[in-house]
C-alpha cells in the first residue's frame, strides 16, 4: 500500500463517516429541522409573492387570482423540493442532499453584512474568522507542545512544569480565563483591546489592518495557549518517554551519539506519527469547547454567531452551525490523517 492507496482509503472512510455523523445529527435534530424548513418555505413564498406584486404594479398584466395560483404552485413545488410531502426515507435523502450542499434555509432574524438571510451565506462570512483564530492557536500550541514535551524528557524542572500546566489544562475553562484577562489586561491595564477583531473604524492600509487584527488576536490566543499547551505537551512527553525505552535508542547510545541528537533526530522522528494523531485529537477537542472564547472576546466567528443565534432563538443558524462544524472538524481530522501518512515511513514504503 503506497501513499496514494492510503489517501484513497482514507477518503472513502472519511466520506462514509461524514454521511454517518450527519445522519446522527439529522436524527437528533429532526423535529426542529422540519420546523425550520417550513418557515424557510414560507419566507421564500413571501418573497416570490412580493416580486409578483411588484411586477404587477409595474406592468399590470396579471390579476390577483393568477398571482394566487402562481404562489400556490410555487409553494407546492418548494414543498416537494424539500421532500416534506414524501415518505420519511425520501425525505431523509432529499434533506441530506440539501445539507451536504450547505442549503440550510433562511435565518429568522440574523443576517450577513451583505443583507442575505441565507444561513449558508451567514456562516460563510463568519467561518474564516474562526478558522484564522483556531489554526493560529493550534499551530502555536503544537509547536510549543513539542518543544516543552521534548525538553521535559531529560529535565526535572520541565517535568514539574508539565505537571502544573497539565492540571491547568484540564481544570481551567478557557473562556473564564479570557474573561479575567479582559477585565485585568484590557480594562484595568489597557494593554490589549477588550474585544472585536479590528479597531473601529477599520484601518484602510492592509498592513495596518493586519497589525490591528494581530493586536486583537493576542489576548484570545494567550488565553487559549495558557490552557491548551498543557494537554498537548503532556501527551508529547509521554510519547517521547515511551519511545526512549525502545531498543534503537539504546543502540544509538551505545554508538556514542550525543543525547540531543538521539532526542531530536531519532526519537522525534519515530514518535512523530503518534504525535500527529494526538495533535488531531487535540484540535478536535479544542474546537468544540473553545467556541466560547469568541463570545467573550466578541470575535466575529462561528462561536459568536452561535451565541447570537441562541439569544434570538434563531434555529436555522444553530442547525447550520452544527452541520458546518461537523464538516469542518472532519476536514481537520482528515488533514491530520494525511500528515500521519506523510510522517509514517511504513505507509510510504507500502508495508
Amino acid at each position, binding site marked *: 500500500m503506497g501513499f496514494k492507496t492510503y489517501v484513497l482509503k482514507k477518503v472513502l472512510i472519511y466520506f462514509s463517516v461524514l454521511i454517518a455523523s450527519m445522519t446522527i445529527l439529522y436524527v*437528533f435534530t429532526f423535529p426542529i429541522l422540519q420546523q425550520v424548513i417550513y418557515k424557510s418555505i414560507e419566507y421564500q413564498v413571501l418573497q416570490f409573492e412580493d416580486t409578483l406584486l411588484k411586477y404587477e404594479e409595474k406592468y399590470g398584466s396579471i390579476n390577483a387570482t393568477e398571482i394566487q395560483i402562481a404562489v400556490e404552485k410555487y409553494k407546492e413545488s418548494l414543498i416537494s423540493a424539500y421532500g416534506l410531502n414524501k415518505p420519511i426515507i425520501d425525505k431523509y435523502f432529499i434533506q441530506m442532499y440539501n445539507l451536504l450542499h450547505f442549503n440550510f434555509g433562511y435565518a429568522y432574524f440574523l443576517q450577513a453584512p451583505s443583507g442575505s438571510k441565507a444561513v449558508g451565506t451567514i456562516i460563510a462570512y463568519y467561518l474564516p474568522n474562526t478558522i484564522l483564530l483556531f489554526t493560529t492557536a493550534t499551530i502555536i500550541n503544537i509547536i510549543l507542545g513539542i518543544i516543552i514535551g521534548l525538553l521535559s524528557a531529560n529535565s526535572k524542572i520541565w517535568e514539574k512544569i508539565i505537571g502544573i500546566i497539565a492540571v491547568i489544562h484540564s481544570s481551567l475553562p478557557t473562556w473564564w480565563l479570557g474573561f479575567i484577562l479582559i477585565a485585568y489586561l484590557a480594562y484595568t491595564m489597557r494593554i490589549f483591546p477588550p474585544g472585536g477583531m479590528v479597531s473601529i473604524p477599520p484601518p484602510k492600509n492592509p498592513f495596518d489592518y493586519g497589525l490591528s487584527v494581530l493586536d486583537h488576536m493576542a489576548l484570545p490566543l494567550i488565553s487559549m495557549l495558557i490552557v491548551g499547551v498543557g494537554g498537548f505537551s503532556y501527551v508529547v512527553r509521554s510519547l517521547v518517554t515511551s519511545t526512549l525505552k525502545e531498543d534503537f535508542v539504546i543502540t544509538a547510545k551505545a554508538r556514542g551519539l550525543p543525547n540531543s541528537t538521539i532526542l531530536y533526530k531519532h526519537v522525534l522522528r519515530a514518535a512523530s506519527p503518534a504525535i500527529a494523531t494526538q495533535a488531531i485529537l487535540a484540535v478536535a477537542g479544542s474546537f468544540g469547547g473553545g467556541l466560547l472564547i469568541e463570545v467573550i472576546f466578541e470575535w466575529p466567528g462561528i462561536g459568536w454567531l452561535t451565541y447570537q443565534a441562541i439569544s434570538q432563538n434563531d434555529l436555522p443558524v*444553530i442547525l447550520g452551525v452544527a452541520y458546518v462544524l*461537523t464538516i469542518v472538524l472532519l476536514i481537520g481530522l482528515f488533514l491530520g490523517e494525511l500528515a500521519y501518512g506523510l510522517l509514517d515511513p511504513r505507509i510510504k514504503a507500502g508495508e
Partner: protein
Amino acid sequence: MSEIRIGFSSYLKDFLSNKMGLAGLAILIVLLIFTGIALSIPSNVYHAWFNPAAWEEYPRHVPPAWMSIFYPGKYFTSENLSPTNISIKSYGKNLYIAIVSYQFNWSKKLPPPDVYFLVYCNTTSGEEEIYWTKPDGNTIEILVPSSSYNELFDLISVKSGIIDYIFSVTGKMPSTVSSELLSSALFNSPKSDFTVTEQGKYSVKIEIISLSPIKITASYLLLIGNSYGLMGTDYFGRPIDLGILLGLPNALGIGALTSVVSVLVGVFVGGIAGYLGGNKDAAIQWVILVFLTLPTLPFLIAVSFVVRPSLVLEALLISFLSWPGYAIIARSAALSIKSNAFVEADKLLGIPSYRVFFTHFMPRLIPMTVAYMALAVPGGILLSQSLAFLGIAPANTVNWGEMLNSAYTYQAQANGYWWWVIFPGLMIVIVSMAFVFIGFAIEKVTLGER
C-alpha cells in the same frame, strides 16, 4: 504495573501516601460537605434565585464585606434599624398621628447607596411624611406618595421631595436621578455641594396621619451597605456565595454522572475493539471516528432546542459525545494487554473467548478505568458550565456558568465587578482540580507513571 505489590489495599496505601491525591481528596471531602449543606436548603430558595423581587433589600453589585479590612471606612454592610420610639396620638375623634422615630450614628466616609423604609400599619393612612434631620440640625421634609403607603419603599420612590431639596440648595435640577445621588443629598453636607459626608447623629421621623385609629404593625429603616457577605452580590442583589453553594450539587452531579457513563462505555467499547482486532476492530474504530467528528458544543446546543434537557439527560448527552476519547485510550491499552502471553495461553486451554474477555482481559483495564473516571469529571463539569454560560441549563437549577453569563451580560469586566467573575469561575476550577489531582494520583499509583 508493579509485580510485587498487587491488590486494592496496596493501591490504597500508595494513594494515601501521594500528596497530590490527598490534596484532591481533602478538597473533595470539603466539597461534599458543602453539597450536603446545599441539598438541605429548601427548594423555595432555589426558586427565589430566579425572582429579582426576592433580592430587593440586598445591596446591588457590591464587593465582599471583607474589603473593609483593606479599605477601612470605605466599605460597610447594610444596617437594619428598629425604631427608637413609636408615638401615637389622637387629636379629636377623627385625627390620629403616629410618629415612628429612628436615631443612628453615621461615621462612614460615604453615604449608603440606598435607604429603604418600611412602615406597616393597620389602616390606610391619609398622609405620610419623612422628616430627615442631619447632624447639623437641618431637616429635610419628604412627602411619601400614596402609592408607597404600606409598602417597602426606597429613595427612588420618594425622589420628588429630595429633588426639591437638592434644587433649593444648589439651584439646579439634577440631570440623572439615581439612588446614590438621592442618598448623597440626605447624607452629605449641603455646604460642600453634597460631596462630603456629614458624620454624626441622624434622626429620622416618619409621620403618618390618618382619620382612623392607627396601629403600627411593623417598621424598620434599612441603610443599604456597599459590601456584602463573603463574595459580594450580583446586579440583582443576589449573594454570590449563596449562588455558588446552590450551584454545587448539580455541578458535581453532572460531572460524576458524565464521567461514569462515558468512561464505562468508552473502556468497554475500546476494550472489545482491542481484544477482537481485525475487521471488527476496524468497524468499531469507524464508529468511534463518527462520534469523534460530532462537534460537542454545537451538537448539544442544537439538541437542547429539541428537548430542554434535565440534569440526567444533559449528562447522558454529554457522555454520548465524550466516550470516543476514552475508547481510543482503552483500545491502545487493550492492544498492549493482548500481546501478553496469558491471552495466548487461555486460547490454547480452550477457554471461551467471552470468558477470557470478562475474567482475564477486562479486569486489567480496571485501574485505567478508575483513573479516567476521576479525570473525566472535570471534562463533564467544564462542558456543562460552558453550556450554562450559553444559556442552556436544566430548568430551575443554579449554575456557575449562568452566573458568569449574567456577569458577561452586565459587563462585569468593564464595570470592575471582579467578585462576580472571579468566584463562580474559581469554583469551577477548584472542583475540577480536585478530580484532576485524584485522577493523576490514581494513575500514578496504578500505572506507575507521572
